[in-house]
């Protein structure tokens, strides 16, 4: 797989949130987890998704608990969380890191269930998600320049984007499918599996396939601009660490108590197209099955790109602080290091950043 070239790295997925664990785990444990994950996606979750929501998400939570208990190197992962807590402060990660970690895996399993409930016109999922601030999106689109929704690898963001599309707002996402980062490590069967089990479900509720900004795909921003020109919605996540090719245009911004390194591509796109830029975050309620998707009013840009991007980052920061278990990157050391939230560690951990 070529080295990604442009600024966004948005389509991470529940399938690989434990990639660093896999890298460290033994071969047998890794195979077991990989097989279990396939079984969950292929059989358990699709069948459970047919049940009433309360039961579906109970199954998902049970699977999350199992995933947590079978973490190949659980003590090391918990120690990693404790170190993060020391580095970033107790506000983000509670003292009871075991409960935090267990919930993290429950949430990831629930997100798979969300995608399974996108069947048909996504009504099974739509019934469980309260949309707040949709009027901001409607008002933004009245200008006729489209709208950019910026989010983070946070909560069930892909399912949320699907619901926005099914609510009557043609939507295209900029982002790379997670499994495309390590295609060479996957068999043809596995690649096909993720295309069918994951991408197909999501893409049914998109205006066009994901715009994946791999190296050589220089038209991505132009295609996004064309979608905005058609007064459609473009979504992307702005919280990943910059890849090597993007370091030159990365900026530092206050994020999770540190000066994090991020790429302000979302603001550049908004400036070049004149499209309003809104923030969107989806979080799960305590019953695990209901969610709230909140869309903000437009972020003021006012010709000051740096300040505008800091506002975006501040919104991501606030969302993560309010619902820390929803953020995908707690166990992805490569992302945390790339962002500058953790000191650089063992290069073997950096599976995504080659």
């Amino acid at each position, binding site marked *: 797989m070529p080295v990604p070239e*442009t600024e966004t790295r948005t389509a991470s997925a529940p399938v690989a949130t434990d990639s660093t664990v896999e890298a460290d785990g033994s071969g047998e444990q890794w195979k077991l987890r990989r097989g279990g994950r396939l079984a969950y996606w292929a059989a358990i979750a699709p069948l459970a998704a047919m049940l009433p929501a309360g039961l579906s998400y109970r199954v998902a939570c049970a699977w999350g608990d199992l995933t947590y208990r079978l973490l190949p190197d659980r003590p090391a992962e918990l120690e990693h969380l404790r170190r993060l807590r020391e580095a970033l402060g107790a506000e983000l990660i509670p003292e009871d890191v075991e409960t935090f970690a267990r919930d993290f895996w429950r949430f990831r399993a629930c997100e798979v269930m969300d995608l399974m409930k996108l069947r048909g016109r996504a009504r099974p999922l739509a019934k469980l998600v309260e949309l707040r601030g949709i009027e901001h999106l409607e008002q933004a689109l009245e200008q006729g320049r489209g709208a950019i929704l910026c989010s983070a690898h946070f909560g069930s963001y892909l399912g949320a984007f699907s619901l926005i599309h099914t609510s009557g707002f043609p939507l295209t996402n900029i982002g790379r499918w997670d499994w495309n980062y390590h295609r060479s490590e996957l068999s043809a069967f596995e690649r096909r599996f993720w295309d069918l089990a994951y991408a197909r479900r999501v893409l049914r509720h998109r205006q066009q396939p994901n715009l994946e900004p791999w190296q050589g795909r220089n*038209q991505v921003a132009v295609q996004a601009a064309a979608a905005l020109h058609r007064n459609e919605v473009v979504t992307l996540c702005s919280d990943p660490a910059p890849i090597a090719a993007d370091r030159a245009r990365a900026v530092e911004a206050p994020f999770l108590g540190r000066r994090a390194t991020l790429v302000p591509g979302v603001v*550049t*796109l908004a400036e*070049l197209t004149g499209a309003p830029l809104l923030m969107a975050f989806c979080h799960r309620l305590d019953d695990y099955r209901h969610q709230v998707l909140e869309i903000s009013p437009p972020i003021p840009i006012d010709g000051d790109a740096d300040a505008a991007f800091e506002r975006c980052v501040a919104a991501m920061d606030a969302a993560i602080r309010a619902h820390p278990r929803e953020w995908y990157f707690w166990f992805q050391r490569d992302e945390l290091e790339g962002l500058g939230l953790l000191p650089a560690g063992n290069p073997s951990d950096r599976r995504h950043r080659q």
Partner: protein
Amino acid sequence: MDDAVIRDYISRELVRDPAILPLENSTPLLDSGVVDSLGLLRLVVFIQDQFGIVMDDLDVVPEHFASVDAICAYLRSRPDYAAAEQPEDARA
């Protein structure tokens, strides 16, 4: 003349590594990474504003933006650009 305008814009706004300056008209822009995805969008917006043309996203293909020479060749192939190039008295 137009090639100088385009080259200057790329040199000023898009080039991040000064070591590759001065830019030649034949310097690969996309393959070398001088122009990336957002850089290409910037360039398209600049060309549209500068030359008063409207480009369809289907026209934004690598062949048309491979180098300054390629951009100029593409612009010359457009009827609206040719019309804009004609002197006032010739158009009358």
